[in-house]
């Protein structure tokens, strides 16, 4: 029992650190693959796709844009819906992941 408690508190501690700390690019990668890459690709969207590339874009720009889509100050049916499902952490993680990629 004690072991479980110690483990749990350690895990909580870790979670708190990762929250407080810089974004997790691993979480960002998972989110990007599950949510963004279908349209924007990972390194590049399709040559035929009407979607902008995200890889290598400025992280702050990506964060601002996603937050604007989320609070609907920037209009797009599909992006308003998708960004609406993202938390602050998700946005930070995804933006950091894409910003680090070379297109």
């Amino acid at each position, binding site marked *: 029992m004690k072991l479980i408690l110690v483990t749990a508190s350690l895990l909580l501690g870790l979670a708190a650190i990762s929250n407080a700390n810089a974004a997790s690019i691993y979480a960002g990668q998972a989110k990007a693959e599950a949510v963004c890459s279908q*349209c924007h*690709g*990972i390194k590049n969207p*399709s*040559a*035929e*796709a*009407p979607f902008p590339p995200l890889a290598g874009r400025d992280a702050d720009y990506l964060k601002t844009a996603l937050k604007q889509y989320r609070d609907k100050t920037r209009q797009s049916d599909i992006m308003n819906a998708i960004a609406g499902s993202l938390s602050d952490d998700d946005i930070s993680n995804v933006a950091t992941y894409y910003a680090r990629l070379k297109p």
Partner: protein
Amino acid sequence: MINIAKTPLRKSILTALAALVLPFGAQAAADNAKDMHQLFEDNCASCHGSDHGGFLAPALNSETLKGRSPTALRSLIMTGSFDTLMPPFYGRLTDDQIRGLVSHLQSTPKLANPSWTIDDIKKSIKVYVSDESTLPEKPTYAIDSMDDVIGVAARGKYGRGSGSKAVFINSTTHKQIGEIPTGTAAHIIDYNPANPRWAYIKTDTAEIFKVDLYSMQAVRSVKTGFNGPGLGVSRDGKYIMAGSFVPHNAVILDADTLEPLKTFELEGIDPDGKMVSSDSGMVIGTPFDDIFAIALENAGQVWVVDLKEGFPVTKITDVGRHLHDAFLSHGGRKLMIASYDDSIVAAIDLKERKIIKKLEAGCVPHVGGGSAVEVDGRTLGFGTNFGDCDKTVVSVWDLDKMEVVKQIPVAGGTESPAAHANAPYVAVDIISKDRRARTVQLIDKKSLEVVKTLDVGGHAYFPEYSADGKFLYVSAGYSGDEVVVYDSTSLQKVASVSMESPAGIFSHGRVRYMTRGLSPDEMKGAK
């Protein structure tokens, strides 16, 4: 809107207007159906089948879509479907087009088998280089041996457009040496066994491109049907045979000019005694003889076509229920063909032209290009399976004695095994629709156990070894958009090559070792 007035005069005008408008409305509906069909052909048919009967992707017709919510279908078309090849059409099609398509699909039955005759095939030939004597005599790029060429079928995100091409790579440097735009998704790449300069690419819409690998350009193309990847080249390099899903036919072409020589209607009596019209499964040439073998998927038959006057056919019946792909062994004399619905692989003797034995093959066997390796004096065949039921194994057969050696448990369904005489592992692609799809598992040739799992990314499939066996190539498909290269012994990643939705990988070395994993010496006994 027209303000409906109450005076009799206005009423009569309205009636007159209606008389004018109504027939026009009926005409518009017919035009609309035609437009919608064209939209389907231009965007959906390369995967879903030109006859609405399904191909790589599900059938879309009034029967299969009965009761489905139009709203759900509309959003599926807009966003695409994750973990599949279905791309997002948002921004490519207007909302009106998408709504129109949904109602068109939900009201259109599967179409009758369309015709595509030998004359249609003849007329479809396009010549890009009319005088082939102007082509260079040697490769225009640095390469030690043409066997080092690896071709990748890049589908392109939408299965068509500028992302759809065959990409050729030097498998010793891992650098791209050329690319051939194919218009729609490239599916199969085959090489001419008699002349290393020629390659043939077949697309999902059944065009075949004859490619000069020395100058990396297409010299001719021909359209052999509407859908279907079946393609084989004869051992003397003089003939090509192509088989289609839509329509149900096959054709033998002159490998030089792509002129059609004979077409075959694919139909026959299935193992349950029913006469059926059939999709074409695999088509294969063999170093063993001047023949082609072609699988009739639904009829459960394998036809052996002799490459002589009249192209006579020997029919081997009752091979299995829903045949698909196959590989060769024993100098190309033995053909191992997978049968989906009864989960067997049937061994066929191409000399005697009869079934040797039916072997257990996991669950819904899909052997891809197949693999065979010699271990401790035995020739072992490896067969992957989709594993749609409860069994996810890779089957290992003793191809001398024709018996099951082992069924190796793997992490999920698999689609294609790769082996090489000089590489320690047999690689299989896990295709189960979750994070496992990112991975490839490696089976030790000697212990026949899974010893390592590689996280490749994307939807990892179609592993292939370089001709020297030193490198393992894997497609990180779907949105992975790259081919990843590993050192085949250390399994360290050594390179990646970017392209859109890569799928099948085809080493030129296959013409030397026939089936992946066999030593080129195996071929010497064939002639």
